């Protein structure tokens, strides 16, 4: 510990003198702040809460761990490589922007870097991961001013870019998951599958996949979205720890149940039954981890209810009536677009004009 402290003191001193190290000051500061807490003291109020943004983001990562570990079990050790590439290339963009702008690196990327691989298909080529994450970070976050100022969820922007630019790789090739013994922990990658995902099976052939398979992850899908038990547990953990707000996931799930029930009643060949809708595709992953991203969702309480209802309606609509099998990523993006408007309307009602 003392050695680490001395290393950072020396680096800080050198960065004052050396020009190259001065440019890299954000990286040195970020690593220093990762290992050691702050020395600053309070003004008024004289005491403050012990939580900070690093811990906040660490808890989100802990919530994602069940899905991630299950992903390695299902699809093999290649998942670790995908995650590593996502962090490396996204982190590179963050460092470049921080060095050029002469500002600090913020912790928002820790979560984006883990969520982005989880919404990609298991057979995604590695170069595509790099391109996707770089696009997402640049156009989803840094172009708007960095953490706290982005309008869109950076991971979703990257995913949609890949869907539109490379549709074949994103929709056609899937893998069959391992589900025996130690599974993917001992293998590198999973075999390609000739079947389609549960959502595509419903859309084309009206086949409903077994709910146990969907729940425990013995189905095809993106890397992180199949182990739905783990996703629900992780999501509930975040809600209990007060990191995620409970209103958005509840509103979204109730809304999906309601609208898909209506749809299934009147047009059963287009709209799947409610429980199948909840348990298929990326709905649970999107609801618990991407919808609740505090920067891009509506911040007012009533706004969260309205946003959740809108999200649910859009998911059912896009899944049922459009050419896409999965509507979650577009619904999240549309919710991000509407969030400021929803907040504005709620504030107009909550704070009426002053009496004269």
């Amino acid at each position, binding site marked *: 510990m003392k050695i680490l402290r001395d290393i950072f003191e020396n680096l800080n001193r050198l960065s004052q003198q050396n020009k190259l190290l001065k440019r890299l000051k954000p990286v040195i500061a970020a690593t220093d702040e990762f290992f050691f807490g*702050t020395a600053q003291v*309070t*003004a008024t109020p004289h005491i*403050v*809460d012990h939580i*900070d943004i690093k811990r906040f983001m660490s808890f989100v990562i802990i919530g994602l761990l069940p899905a991630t570990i299950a992903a390695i079990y299902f699809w093999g050790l290649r998942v670790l490589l995908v995650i590593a590439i996502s962090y490396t290339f996204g982190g590179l963009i963050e460092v470049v922007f921080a060095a050029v702008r002469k500002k600090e690196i*913020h912790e928002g990327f820790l979560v984006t870097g883990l969520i982005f691989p989880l919404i990609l298909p298991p057979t995604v080529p590695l170069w595509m991961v790099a391109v996707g994450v770089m696009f997402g970070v640049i156009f989803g976050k840094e172009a708007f001013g960095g953490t*706290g100022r982005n309008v869109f969820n950076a991971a979703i922007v990257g995913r949609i870019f890949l869907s539109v630019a490379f549709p074949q790789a994103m929709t056609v090739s899937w893998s069959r998951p391992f589900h025996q013994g130690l599974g993917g922990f001992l293998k590198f990658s999973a075999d390609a599958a000739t079947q389609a995902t549960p959502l595509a099976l419903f859309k084309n052939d009206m086949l409903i996949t077994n709910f146990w398979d969907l729940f425990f992850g013995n189905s095809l899908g993106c890397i992180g979205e199949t182990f739905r038990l783990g996703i629900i547990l992780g999501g509930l953990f975040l809600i209990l720890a*007060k990191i995620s707000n409970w209103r958005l996931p509840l509103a979204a799930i109730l809304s999906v149940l309601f609208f898909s029930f209506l749809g299934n009643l009147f047009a059963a060949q287009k709209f799947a039954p409610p429980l199948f809708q909840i348990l298929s595709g990326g709905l649970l992953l999107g609801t618990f981890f991407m919808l609740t991203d505090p920067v891009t969702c509506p911040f007012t309480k009533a706004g969260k209810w309205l946003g959740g209802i809108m999200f649910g309606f859009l998911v059912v609509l896009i899944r049922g009536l459009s050419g896409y099998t999965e509507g979650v990523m577009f619904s999240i993006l549309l919710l991000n677009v509407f969030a400021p408007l929803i907040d504005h309307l709620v504030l107009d009602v909550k704070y009426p004009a*002053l009496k004269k």
Partner: protein
Amino acid sequence: MPKTHTFAGGYKFVNFEGQPKPVLEEAVIPLRVSVPLRQGFGAEGDCLVEVGEKVSAGQIISHIEKGVASPVHATINGVVEEVRRVNYFQCDCLMVSIKGDGSPGYQKVPGAAGNWEQWSAQELEKVLYLSGVTALDREGIPTRFHSSVIHPEDVENLIVHGIGSEPYNISIDVLLQGKNTLHLIEGIKILHKIMPKARVYFALNNQRKKILEEIKKLTCPFDWLEICSLEPKYPQGYDELLVPTILKQKFPYGYSAANIGAVVLNLQAVLQVYEAAAEGKPLIERTVALCGPAFKEPLHIKVRIGTVLKDVVSARIKEGVAPRFVRNGLLTGAELKDANLPIDKTYSQIIAIPENRQRQFLAFLRPGFKSDSYSRTFLAKFLPGAKKSCETNKHGEERPCISCNYCEEACPVSIIPHLLSKYVQRNIIDETLMRLRIFNCIECGLCSYVCPSKIPLAEYIKEGQEKLTIQGCDRNQCILPYFDNIRGIEEYRGAKEVY
């Protein structure tokens, strides 16, 4: 048992280490005091004594010509050493330094002899005014001598409270030890005699069930008194939240409860009212709780007003700890940087917490057995007996706002601090801030407390209010149109002279 009332928002501070023990120590009579002639609210009087003059404890040493105030007394027997102006809590105030002889006696209030029940309301008012207790708490006790901004006939409600919602509180067991519960009831009866039109509410922490039962039994025959049990959620102890919670009335933020006819008094003030009327004791002493982990032994002491801070605390601090002294409340209290300044009548707690500039290794990954937090991410929340640590470290670097909404959930007056501070940071100061009710802020400090990004939200909101005022937007436009029976406004703002 009466129903528990509460308000939306707020945060409960539970079990901080260094709570003051329920033990009362009689402090040694000091050999020197510095009595400020302006303490708390109220105008400063003219000094009646000169250097070299002999004074006795309880002798009035200030004379009020105009303004809202009560007399100030010398607090020890001795000789006046110095009369000079000192910078005291951001205003230049006259301070009378007295060198004492150590004797404990005091001069009784003139006219206070025998049974207070036989006096008229006017005689009672005079005794209370001359004893100085009418200057206690936020707006004092109204008498016809202009000790408060309103008149005793204007008082519709009187709230007596001992909520204790701060992280550190003075102990009610210490205040009500011995016969003091009976004295408290007598004090309430005295106040009822002065303000006969007022309905009295007695509010206590809902966890003190025994005391609530006892008070209920003792006050059964009074139909003008009502008992309320409140949840000890910070900042319930503030006037701005007691009035809406108990009286269910809107509060004129920025003004005081006195402007809507409510007087709010703490338990200690009512006890001192009794001592003034029944025993003739002038306001020369206060019971102060010494709290916080930097004290060797946190307890309660009785101090003479004017005792220099250094004389009280320097021997009681733990070895090797660099303390920060705070007055009364940890989230909003003033930092006591100069230990040569005296304790005055507004003190009820002196809190000492250690300054901590240590850079802790992997601070954000710790399990947190002793860490208090609004979020449920530390183990201390799930261990009921855990004593929470209390020091001045910021526990994180300042980061951009992520709109996590903790500040809005914690805000007791239902405004949105992160939204307001974003407007202020980008310098967009216009009527939108007024519409978003920026002037409702009561400066409780909870928003800055809970923020994970360590943004000083309360400071930004205050800056926004100041910039709006500079631009010409008056807070009256936001507050006054909603009230039709507000009184004493001009006297409160100092726009009208009170003689």
